[in-house]
């Protein structure tokens, strides 16, 4: 009779261990998924960090390039201020002067 009770108990134990084993497998799969997600998350965070660093670098380059634009425009402004009048206009002025001298003579 004790053997029968032991057999019954053993069957219950086997069923419980089977269930536990199944659950452990599922838990292992979940842990693997978590691990994969964490790895992907880390990689994405690194990629984001790299992209932000590149964006900052590009912005600094933009600022530098705009400084160069401003400097070049300043030089252009100075050159335009110093630009002599058109030769045709000067020629006109000379001709007017010559005509005035001729009239006065």
């Amino acid at each position, binding site marked *: 009779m004790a053997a029968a009770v032991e057999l019954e108990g053993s069957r219950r134990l086997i069923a419980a261990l089977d269930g536990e084993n199944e659950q452990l497998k599922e838990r292992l799969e979940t842990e693997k998924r978590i691990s994969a997600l964490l790895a992907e998350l880390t990689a994405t965070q690194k990629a984001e960090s790299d992209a932000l660093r590149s964006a900052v670098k590009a912005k600094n380059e933009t600022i530098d*390039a705009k400084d160069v634009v401003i400097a070049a425009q300043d030089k252009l402004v100075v050159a335009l201020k110093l630009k002599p009048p058109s030769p045709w206009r000067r020629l006109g002025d000379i001709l007017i002067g010559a005509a005035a001298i001729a009239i006065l003579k």
Partner: protein
Amino acid sequence: MIKNLTTQTKIYIVIAAGFIALIAGAAAWSNYRIRSLENRVESAKRSADRSQQAAVQKEAEAETHRQKIAYLERLLGETEQLARKQDEKLEKLNSDSRRARGDVDRARRTRAVPAGAVELCEKLADLGHPCTR
């Protein structure tokens, strides 16, 4: 006609021609310099535009990564919640196993008591092993 001109007039013409050439040369040099400066300004503008486009592109890339991170974090949260539930279930199953093992150990330690054949057959039948005769 040139032969009829006096030396003085010729000198005047030469001076005037030289003066005109000087003015034209100065104007040409000035135009060249201004064009060169304008080209430099345009080149610098193009360079600035390129850098700005690169910055915008990198920011868009960073935004995409930010969205992906948010999605992954949400997914991770859900998975961790599932893991917690599985742990709770596992704890319960573990407790069941311990209890079953305890039952088996107890049954093993139990002293064998004499039982009647009928009683034994009934018990075996309950377990799915009925007596054949």
